[in-house]
């Protein structure tokens, strides 16, 4: 059962995805668009891997924007458990209800049925994702590599059946299967079963052309000259084997910083003042200085 699109929305080929995401301010290539297209057609989650700052999380956001669907986000972390990912009973409210009903003539069974009804259920992201009434939402499971293996196994089960069992309520089955996007930074290898359940896409650093287009689209005020210099500079910095090479997010940050300092032409002083946007550690900053800022600027010229 493929996800349901909002009425009037159609995705016929990867080209539609490329255009749709671009309208949302996200430049993508046909490979990623194909993966997303297949995700909607084959009802499979899309697993995005790649370095930090390349817009993995953004994909889900712009996809939701493009589809006009609701975005439900689950941020993973170590120790994430079912209580915070799926559902929890609202204990306080239950206690109050018991108190209020103390003098009514309901039987214990009726009372119990009441306090374990939907009214007292706190829906967490995964439960929300399968509860949609009209059409499929976008479910973003962010940084799934940070959750532990037990949770990964649970997620796998959910992504296969799209149903959740709550002992007191019974099984809730998704009426509309969500579009699922998972992201991973590869801090650990994900389980084979989960990976094989998903369509896989590896996000590369953008090419010069693509990055130029992104900068132009996201920072409309930037001069073509500065944009070119910034992007070429960042592209050479990526070749320096830093421990955290700058992603697109860093390029945009940096360009913005330079613009607010009213830099029109990249010069060593301006680069040094804003180096913190590109290098996220002392060692990385050292490597850039070592390679010679003047040198890098002349390459970017």
């Amino acid at each position, binding site marked *: 059962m493929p996800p349901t699109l909002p009425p009037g929305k159609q995705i016929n*080929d990867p080209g539609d995805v490329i255009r749709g995401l671009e309208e949302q301010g996200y430049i993508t290539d*046909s490979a990623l668009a194909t993966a997303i297209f297949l995700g909607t057609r084959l009802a499979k989650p899309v697993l995005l*891997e790649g370095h930090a700052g390349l817009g993995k999380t953004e994909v889900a956001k712009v996809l939701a924007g493009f589809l006009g669907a609701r975005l439900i986000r689950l941020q993973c972390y170590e120790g994430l458990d079912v209580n915070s990912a799926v559902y929890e009973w609202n204990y306080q409210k239950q*206690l109050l209800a018991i108190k209020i009903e103390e003098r009514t003539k309901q039987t214990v069974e009726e009372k119990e049925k009441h306090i374990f009804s939907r009214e007292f259920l706190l829906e967490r992201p995964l439960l929300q994702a399968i509860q949609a009434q009209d059409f499929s939402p976008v479910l973003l499971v962010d940084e799934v590599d940070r959750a532990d293996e037990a949770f990964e196994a649970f997620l796998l089960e959910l992504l296969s059946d799209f149903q959740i069992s709550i002992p007191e309520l019974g099984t809730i089955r998704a009426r509309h299967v969500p579009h699922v996007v998972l992201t991973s930074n590869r801090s650990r290898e994900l389980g084979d079963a989960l990976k094989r359940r998903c369509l*896989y896409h590896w996000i590369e650093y953008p090419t010069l052309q693509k990055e130029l287009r992104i900068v132009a689209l996201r920072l409309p005020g930037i001069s073509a000259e500065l944009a070119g210099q910034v992007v070429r500079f960042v592209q050479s910095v990526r070749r320096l084997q830093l421990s955290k090479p700058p992603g697109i997010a860093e390029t945009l940050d940096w360009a913005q910083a330079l613009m607010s300092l009213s830099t029109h032409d990249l010069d060593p002083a301006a680069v040094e003042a804003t180096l913190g946007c590109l290098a996220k550690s002392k060692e990385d900053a050292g490597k850039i200085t070592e390679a010679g800022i003047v040198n890098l600027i002349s390459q970017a010229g």
Partner: protein
Amino acid sequence: MSLPEESLASRIVEFCRFCRDSGLSAGIKESVDAVSAARAVGISDREILKSALRAVLCSNKDEWDQFDELFMSFWSSAPPGFRTTTPRKKLQPDQPLPQGAITTLMGRSSAGRAAEADAGKAVLGATAQERLRRTDFSEASQNDLPELERIAIRLLRQMSLRLSRRRKSMMQRDQVDLRRTIRRNVSRGGDLIDLRYRAKKIQQNRLVVLLDISGSMNPYSLFFLRFAYALQRHFKRIHTFLFSTQLTEITTSLRGPSLAQAMQSLAQQAMGWSGGTKIGESLKEFVVYHGARELSRDTVFIVLSDGWDTGPPEALAEQLSAIRRRVRTVMWLNPLLGLPQYQPVTQGMSAALPYIDVFAPAHNLESLLALERHLE
């Protein structure tokens, strides 16, 4: 690529089989998905067909990188219509074997990778496994090594999983702290509305592991690295160092997502593999440069070494006693302790003994696994 619709499916399935033979992990289910994917995107645009098949058939970066070549070699050379594909031999694994340092350490070039590739396929009888668990690493025959490595990976993984599970169950916070709850709710007439939980804060021990990689430790070093890798997967606060005549920190290298990658990253660093040993000096280097950060009352300090030291024994004793004063436990794991006739009488070892809390053998898998209980 103009194909009649009915042959498209069989052609795609053929390609999937070709990928599988070339080392991709895609199974039957992926073949089915690949056919649906190809139907969904059509075959008019070659790039899009490639992207579609890649999204379905690959499941990690390595396969992703390999795919281009597979796609090219299958589709481009094909004359229109059918072709009998003779699957090529397995492609070269895209990550070259660790060369240089690690290879000399292993003393054999391909055993490690072969063992990993075959992991899960071969099933060994229980008795043979039992035997291998007790085999001294230095005495394992060349034939047994791949098998031994396979078991080592599995058992060490189980161990690290056990360690983390135990920790998890202790960290659950779902116990209601009745005393504080009632105290808190007195103003509400004693009705329990605002629940307080008893949060157990279990602080994990900090681990420091020092691996001796001098010549005399050669037969053991590889397994110790695996051990360190397994530990590192589940201890957050762990730092691993190698030493022979000097000290090198390898914590970051071991953080790779897979052991093969960790090994490769290690191989790229120049270190004194198989050289002499100066334990005292290495410890001193540790104290000077890392002591302030690593040594504290909750540290378990682990040295994996046979105690053959070419430096003065006093230096070793002095450093170890200094470390002993600052940490919770000093563990010394000595592979020679597995030998029945071994006595720790080498000068270095006997100088170190007074400052060691746990002195244990580490010559086979079983002894490594037995250390689990000291790590909690």
